[in-house]
């Protein structure tokens, strides 16, 4: 506390301390990586994500019986226990997505961030890229860990899946992709609202409340809207769907993200920090 330098030290060392320092996007990416990985909340959220994914897969296998054991159906059957945890994991990743940006506003950190990067938008995009890629990688770890843990349990019941089947590993990769995309949607909601409570309410509302409310309304066009909601569309990435091919589902998800990211960018440029 009282580490006070009593003599005034030299302001500038004899050498140039930062000879070729300048602002670059790669530097902003590095900065965002440091910020993401030096907070306990990040590490906790990712740890919970993996645990939930594995845990729910195990519980599901233990609780159910009568898996199809036909050769093609086995691969199909292995998808559900590996990706079931996403139902809970999507909530964890959404909360984290909101927090990585709303935490900066809540603490005042944003003013340090924007003073270092006064053009502002590089911060928004770099944070999205770092958070999106990290979440995808952690999502992959979580889903494949769930597959690895549940495989011997299913194998013991004669349900022997083969990971080299593109339909199988495609679904697992799709599940990780869904987690990353839904996390990004929550992140941009947080960037628009700049508030943790509001951002989490909006993200979870879009995932949980809106589909339920829409299901109460008996009208064909409402049903169609319900099929286009991000949480519903995204399921076709790992569970398959009769409406969307996986690549179409990715496009719809990206559309949702763009709808929130564009106002987030405009507001970040315009508003006082």
């Amino acid at each position, binding site marked *: 506390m009282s580490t006070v330098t009593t003599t005034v030290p030299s302001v500038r060392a004899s050498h140039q301390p930062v000879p070729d320092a300048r602002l670059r996007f790669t530097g902003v990416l590095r900065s965002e990586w440091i910020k993401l990985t030096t907070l306990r909340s990040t590490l906790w959220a990712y740890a919970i994500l993996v645990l939930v994914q594995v845990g729910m897969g195990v519980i599901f296998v233990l609780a159910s019986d009568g898996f199809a054991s036909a050769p093609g159906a086995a691969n199909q059957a292995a998808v559900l226990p590996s990706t079931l945890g996403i139902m809970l994991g999507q909530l964890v990743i959404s909360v984290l997505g909101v927090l990585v940006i709303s935490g900066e506003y809540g603490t005042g950190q944003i*003013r340090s961030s924007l003073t270092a990067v006064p053009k502002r938008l590089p911060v928004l995009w770099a944070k999205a890229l770092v958070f999106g890629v990290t979440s995808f990688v952690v999502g992959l770890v979580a889903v494949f860990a769930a597959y690895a843990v549940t495989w011997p349990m299913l194998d013991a019941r004669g349900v022997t899946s083969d990971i080299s089947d593109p339909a199988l590993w495609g679904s697992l990769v799709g599940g990780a992709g869904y987690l990353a995309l839904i996390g990004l949607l929550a992140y941009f909601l947080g960037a628009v609202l700049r508030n943790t409570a509001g951002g989490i309410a909006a993200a979870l509302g879009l995932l949980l409340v809106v589909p339920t409310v829409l299901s109460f309304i008996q009208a064909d066009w409402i049903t169609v809207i319900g099929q286009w909601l991000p949480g519903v569309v995204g399921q076709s990435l790992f569970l398959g769907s009769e409406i969307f091919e996986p690549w179409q589902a990715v496009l719809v998800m990206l559309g949702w993200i763009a709808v929130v990211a564009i106002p987030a960018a405009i507001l970040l440029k315009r508003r006082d920090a």
Partner: protein
Amino acid sequence: MIEATSLTKRYGAKTAVDSIDFAVRPGQVTGFLGPNGAGKSTTMRMIVGLDRPSAGRVLVNGKPYAEHAAPLREVGALLEAKAVHTGRSARNHLRSIAATHGIPRRRVDEVIDLTGLHSVAGKRVGGFSLGMGQRLGLAAALLGDPATLILDEPVNGLDPEGVLWVRGFVRQFAAQGRTVLLSSHLMSEMALTADHIIVLGKGRVIANATVAEIVGSTQTFVRVRSPRIDEVARRLTQPDVTVTSVDADVIEVRGLPADVIGDAALSVGVALHELTTVQGSLEDAYMNLTRDEVEYRTTVTPDAALAEGIAR
């Protein structure tokens, strides 16, 4: 060099900064003075682009702050203590800022040592005192070895040694030909640190001059104490001389030097117990300048309230 031209900031109907022009020159310490709500912080925030001006502009070394290739090398700003995520350690906070500009790790360690944060650099910022937060803010401002320093209330919350350190530091910084703009509520601190002062009131520049000029604008007066003060006062009465009674045996005289007053007392045969020339302080000058500009005035002084309480 910082140049503001017709710089204006409005929040709805309220004008926080009202079309101000000023220049902050290198090689000296420029102080920003003004009561709460005068627009000091808003102006500083506009310099580094945190607030958008409603009109006018402000340039740093000829360009808007955001247009520089290496903003942190142009300006180091400490605008509020703890503009930091509370869950991150001081060192990691500095590393994250340094990374944006590719500033090496060695420089991060340098500013940690420079600001005396070494023993707490690994601790999370949430537990920092205000003074520690100020030191961390200063460390962040120095990361880019900037040409200009902007410090909003830098000694707020610092211990006396820290205050002394900041004072010496900014003086030395300016002596190297760099630019320093700092604000403070502590007039005495400003008198010791600044060379040039810009006084803001209600969003306008109400004075922009050297410390010597501003102090010189206040009148000096002579305090005279005597058991027969009335006789002295009567002897001194003449045009252009103001005599103010401040106590039963004390008067303040404006318009005459001490030697003339002493001679006058002798001529009426009165002994003086005190004869002191009082130089106006920066604080007096500041109070005079901002008398009409204070937005949040304390209407009842503590003394008056106390006296009233005793009278009951």
